[in-house]
């Protein structure tokens, strides 16, 4: 028999549990003085380029109730579609933009990120993805962090040719990935289950 290849297996995920805030946003949850400031509070700094927006929404469970004990992270490109990451192969990222944010949802079950609208991001081999923000949600009862994307309602043309939205359109769930823009507020509610269940990604 052939010897199997020796690639390793990924460490299994386990739920972040009900006390995720101790690890993710300790100051917000009264573990004061260990670190000066919780990470991911600010996505933009003064002088950031691009359109300032506020992305807000709720995470809603299968019973229709807001999930008040989750932590939401976002990851996005800058106004020119460039990521602030050592793995970004293009140069010229906006130094006043981190692209990464983290928030516990408040007691009202809402998150709200002060950020900028990202530019379109190229796809290897040609083409672009419409402007989008990656979301990652962890909580008690979520066994593997849930990843999804928010696209923009004011990008109808670009959305038509986006390869990920195209997949969601094939199963008639595209609208669950669209944040609704009204002025500088973009509303994106994430449904874990039910009629409006958000499309989650395996990527």
């Amino acid at each position, binding site marked *: 028999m052939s010897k199997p290849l*020796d*690639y*390793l*297996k*990924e*460490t*299994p*995920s*386990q*739920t*972040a*549990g*009900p*006390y995720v*805030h*101790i*690890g*993710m946003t*300790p100051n917000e*949850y*009264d*573990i004061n*003085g*260990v*670190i000066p400031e919780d990470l991911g509070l600010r996505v933009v700094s003064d002088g950031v380029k691009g359109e300032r927006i506020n992305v807000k929404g709720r995470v809603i*469970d*299968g019973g229709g109730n807001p*999930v008040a004990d989750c932590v939401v992270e976002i*990851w996005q490109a800058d106004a020119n579609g460039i*990521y602030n990451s050592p*793995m*970004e*192969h*293009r*140069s010229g990222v906006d130094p006043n933009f981190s692209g990464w944010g983290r928030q516990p949802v408040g007691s009202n079950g809402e998150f709200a990120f002060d950020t900028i609208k990202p530019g379109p991001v190229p796809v*290897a081999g040609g083409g672009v*993805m419409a402007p*989008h923000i*990656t979301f*990652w949600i*962890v909580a008690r*009862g*979520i*066994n*593997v*962090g*849930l*990843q999804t994307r928010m696209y923009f309602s004011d990008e109808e043309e670009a959305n038509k040719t986006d390869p*990920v939205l195209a*997949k969601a359109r094939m*199963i008639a*769930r595209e609208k669950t990935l669209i944040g609704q823009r009204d002025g500088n507020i973009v509303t994106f509610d994430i449904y*874990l*289950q039910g009629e409006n*269940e958000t*499309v*989650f*990604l*395996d*990527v």
Partner: protein
Amino acid sequence: MNDRLSNSRAEAGAFIERDHSQHPPAFAPGYKSSVLRAPKQSLISFASTLSEKTGPAFGHNMLGEYDNDLIINYAKPGEEAIGQRIVVHGRVIDQNAKPVPNVLVEFWQANAGGRYRHKREGYRAPLDPNFGGFGRTITDDDGYYWLRTIKPGPYPWPNGVNDWRPAHIHFSLFGTGFAQRLISQMYFEGDPLIKICPIVNTISDPDAIDRLVARLDMNNTIPMDLRAYRFDIVLRGRRSTFFENRKEGN
């Protein structure tokens, strides 16, 4: 980094497809909290794009001197947390067995009595005034990390009538790409509660569970001071970028 060089870089490799047999399913009714929080539809699968190949980076200079020392990082000056003194250490590597440097590792845990310092926690075990339960570190060039802490206690939780969590430490990790983002829990070798825990048992593969169990490491135990536990973590690996000038990912 030299700009001319960075302009000529090839796009980073895509991630190896996630092997879902190594993870719990979203819907695992033995763990009752998952019932209303599990998506019921299939995930949409596609090869990673730049949005997942990239991820935030964290510099070693953001760390405070005692960030990875839970015995003293919340304690009053000159005092220490109560409990069994341990060090947990290991390497963060990827599926290609390459070390992953600069990984932000955050951890949180209950105190020696099994009590979390959290406003939603109601277990009767006492708080330790010198224990916060949070720490963090960043892996070095060899992917190595360590933390000093006290061994957390097991605790009861409302699921079945009489469910108890095995002693565990929560880990959160960032790799080089956002697709590697991972949260998990580390257990301790020999704990009889592991086998009967509904959260552990959301994972069906016994080998996968075994990889969450840290081993007592007597070789790194400090005599008359603290015991060492070894816990290595594997993040998703990248595929080779064939036909590119420069290989990344293996």
